[in-house]
């Protein structure tokens, strides 16, 4: 019996190796006393090395581990977005209550674990690696949501996410079983072949599989009507984690959404395209209407995330290079826009008694201009106003939709954006046009002996570099890519072209 030594492309899996090593080191650092304070630095180091290794693999698509993974520009660009968000999550977590309560080493190790899930999910081309990566991404997040151990909301958020996320995973798994049963393959390319070879075109078995897989992924990307968990979980989780989750999870899930539907199920286009388009439209309406009248900024951003996921799903629907590129572009823009908003929310949460309530940003324009400008830019960008990356992102998506004969969905995006103005501009108005002279910073709670969680942790948080820095950086990037979008467009079109290349 001959034993063939398997060929291992170490260069291709080097990012995952780096993450694994980093994860172990960070976790162990909690054990050794002298290293206890170094978890954030080690995490940043790991993320930096991983990003470097990923960029090294740019423009060199390769299939890894006997077809379980495919490291192409799409995977790299999505991974980079996830790493960027994780890095900012680390910075925003400095002096966050959750890291102290849950243990800095554990908190950061979990974060790295989730990033590893995302990096793997973005590369997954096989049902098994797909599912394992998805769980790898989700399970650390369930725990991270609950790391604010003494706050009921945080625990509730973790539990809710766990239950709903598990239902999503189970549905997805069930759908996968149908697809495997029908085609006998777990490879995405093999599934595509199997459908043709076994004459399963339009077969109920396949259709049920597609539907359940779509529902499972819709849970993860918070597409309506499978979004109910989103606002609650976003509100309850520690804010740096919410920021990370809002963008990075969506990015990774959309990567596999694109791969799974466009590569494995491309031949069944006629059956899933109208269904996904309908989901996108529902998501746009539900998200935008739901966000109206939300007083909690995190809830509002949760609902807005539902709507934004609807916009992005449009790029998946059209099944084209332009569609894929527009999703990548939008995700990158979305990362910067959300980051600016969440950085400001973290700062205000720590220095006022209002938490993430809209009252916390009242009069911010006068009091903390360095926070007010980033939040303003973020809101205008999310609303898709020109001179921001949000406008170019919408332009890209609409162009892809019109080219793909889905003009009606483009009109939905326009209508959704109009509704969204009402709640985005409400935040802007609170900052710049609110009643003046009322400072909310460091105000004492109205009720004596209120829970210590409501106390401002740090009345000067709005001036700290680790709050102002990320906010300004993300806002500057949002404006920069709104005026000079060419580099980001090229980045996205590379990623888009690599899906079928």
């Amino acid at each position: 019996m001959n034993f063939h030594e398997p060929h291992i492309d170490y260069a291709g899996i080097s990012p995952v190796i780096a993450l694994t090593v980093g994860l172990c080191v960070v976790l162990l650092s909690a054990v050794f006393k002298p290293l206890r304070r170094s978890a954030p630095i080690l995490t940043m180091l790991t993320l930096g090395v991983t990003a470097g290794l990923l960029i090294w693999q740019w423009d060199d698509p390769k299939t890894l581990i006997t077809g379980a993974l495919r490291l192409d520009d799409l995977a790299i660009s999505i991974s980079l977005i996830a790493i960027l968000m994780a890095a900012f999550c680390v910075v925003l977590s400095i002096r966050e209550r959750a890291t102290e309560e849950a243990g800095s080493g554990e908190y950061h190790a979990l974060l790295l674990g989730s990033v590893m899930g995302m990096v793997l999910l973005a590369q997954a081309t096989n049902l098994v690696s797909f599912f394992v990566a998805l769980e790898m991404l989700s399970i650390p997040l369930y725990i991270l949501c609950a790391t604010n151990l003494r706050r009921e909301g945080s625990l509730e958020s973790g539990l809710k996410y766990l239950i709903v996320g598990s239902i999503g995973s189970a549905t997805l798994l069930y759908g996968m079983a149908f697809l495997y049963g029908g085609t006998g393959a777990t490879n995405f390319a093999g599934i595509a072949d199997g459908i043709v070879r076994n004459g399963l075109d339009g077969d109920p078995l396949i259709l049920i599989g597609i539907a359940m897989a779509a529902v499972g992924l819709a849970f993860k990307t918070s597409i309506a009507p499978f979004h109910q968990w989103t606002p609650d979980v976003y509100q309850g989780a520690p804010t740096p984690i919410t920021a990370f989750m809002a963008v990075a999870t969506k990015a990774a899930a959309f990567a596999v959404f694109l791969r799974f539907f466009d590569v494995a199920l491309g031949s069944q286009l006629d059956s899933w395209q109208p269904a996904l388009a309908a989901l996108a439209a529902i998501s746009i309406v539900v998200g935008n209407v739901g966000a109206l009248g939300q007083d909690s900024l995190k809830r509002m951003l949760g609902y807005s995330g539902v709507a934004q996921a609807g916009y992005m799903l449009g790029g998946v629907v059209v099944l084209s290079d332009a569609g894929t590129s527009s999703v990548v572009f939008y995700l990158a823009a979305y990362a910067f826009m959300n980051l600016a908003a969440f950085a400001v929310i973290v700062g205000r949460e720590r220095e006022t008694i209002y938490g993430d309530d809209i009252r916390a940003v009242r009069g911010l324009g006068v009091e903390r201009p360095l926070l007010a400008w980033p939040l303003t830019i973020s809101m205008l960008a999310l609303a898709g106003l020109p001179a921001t990356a949000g406008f170019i992102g919408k332009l890209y998506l609409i162009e892809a939709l019109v080219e793909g004969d889905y003009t009606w969905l483009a009109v939905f995006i326009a209508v959704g954006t109009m509704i969204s103005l009402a709640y985005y501009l409400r935040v802007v108005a609170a900052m710049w046009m609110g009643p003046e002279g009322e400072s909310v910073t460091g105000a004492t709670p109205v009720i004596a002996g209120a829970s210590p969680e409501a106390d401002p942790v740090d009345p000067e948080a709005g001036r700290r570099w680790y709050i102002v820095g990320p906010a300004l950086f993300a806002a500057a990037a949002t404006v920069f890519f709104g005026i000079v979008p060419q580099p980001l467009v090229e980045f996205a079109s590379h990623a888009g072209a690599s899906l079928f290349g």
Partner: protein
Amino acid sequence: MSSAILWMPLAFGLVGLFLPKRAVGWWAVLGAVVTLGLAIAVAIGFDSGSSALQYAVDEPWISGLGVDYSLGIDGLNLFLILLTAVLWTGGVAFAAFREQERPTTFYFLMLVAETATLGSFLAQDLLLFVLFFDLMLVPFYFLFGAWGHDRSAEGGLTASAATLKMIVYTLIGSLLMLVAAIATAVLAADGGHLTFSIAALSEHGLTEGSQRWIFWFFAAAFLVKMPAFLLHGWMPDAYRAAPLPALAVFSGVLAKVGAYGFLRVVLPLFPDATVEFQEVILVIALASILYGSVMAFTQTNVRLIAGYSSVAQLGFITAGIFALSADGADGAVLQMVNHGLVVAPLFVIVAILAERTGSEDIREMGGMALRAPVLAALFLIVALATLAMPGSANFVGEFYILNGLFEAKIVFACIAISGVAMSAYYALRLYQQTMHNRLPSVQNQGLLSREIGVRDGLVLVPLVLCIVGLALYPQLILERTAPTVDKQVAAVSGGDSPEAQLAKK
């Protein structure tokens, strides 16, 4: 040169952010004046006989999406750019003579607004036009919302609610326009090379079916901006809330962008739909004239009188464009400039009156002519221009519009003519009530002089001189605009060539 004009205000605005608070107002004035100087230089160097683009710039901006950074000046936008530069100089100077809250941000936003407005006039790329068209709204949102007046005590809206209403109304149109613009380019490219260049797009006609819905998406954006009847719901609240220096430029220029959009984009790109819906738009235009006029002579708030008179005037301009004849469109362009020059001083006068009488209600003003003869004289010129007195450039403009309309649709022209009569009523009513009507409450104050100071005179007199100058020599505009405007119209009506039209004049 086009780029210099476009970015000059923004450059001054950015530098102004780092200046001390006392200096920033005059720095902004300097920025507006430099821009005006550039605009005048362009107008002097402009080749009046040609209908081609001059000072053109064309660089790829986002090559992957087919968007170019493409600017240019022709007869259609030359005077609108000049108007923008003139009114902004006036508006910023008027503001600089007064204390402003948070001046750094105020002037920054004013200058951003100027760049955005100039951009929408200069853009020769459809998407760039849409971008600047939307961008215009952002600075005005902050200007109206944060520096505006809270009218909730008078049964109106708070400033932020009024501006939100304005934003939602106008963006409904603009966002649909974004979809329509992209659809235009994608359908015209038909799988080939994607371009948003207006000139290139006008050569590839769209099918009549797609022209139809795209026409309405564009028309919605432009009609809201004007505003036209039924889409004017945002106007009264926003006008009451707005700070006056910003309102003067807003009313003077932004409303014209809508009318300009019809000439620049809709007529050449969607000729079939334009002919098909000509009468629908004319009905809307006539309704605007009648409704605007009637409202203007029932209102007592000075801002609203000016606001509703704008609705009527913009109705005239729309009617002139959709007469689809060379005369009508020439008149429309002339009238755009005229109306801008008239309405901006009107708001400056309103501001001055409000400072002196403490009210914006004409029932509480009066008897100003005796105590402020210079102001009254200036106001009289503005009022007479508003009612299109023979001898004013507005008369020439309205005459051309009606002439074009008579040639095209005689029934519509007969109705439109009533608007001319009504404009005389509301303009004179406004003048009489504020200047002549001596109120008992005011009479007790004796002959205390309420004359305008040198500083306000410096703002008002040049604007009035522009009105007088144009009244003496309206050909200045007509000569330069006619070749381009006629070309735009000829694309639809398929009538005489531009040269033949010019020879006729």
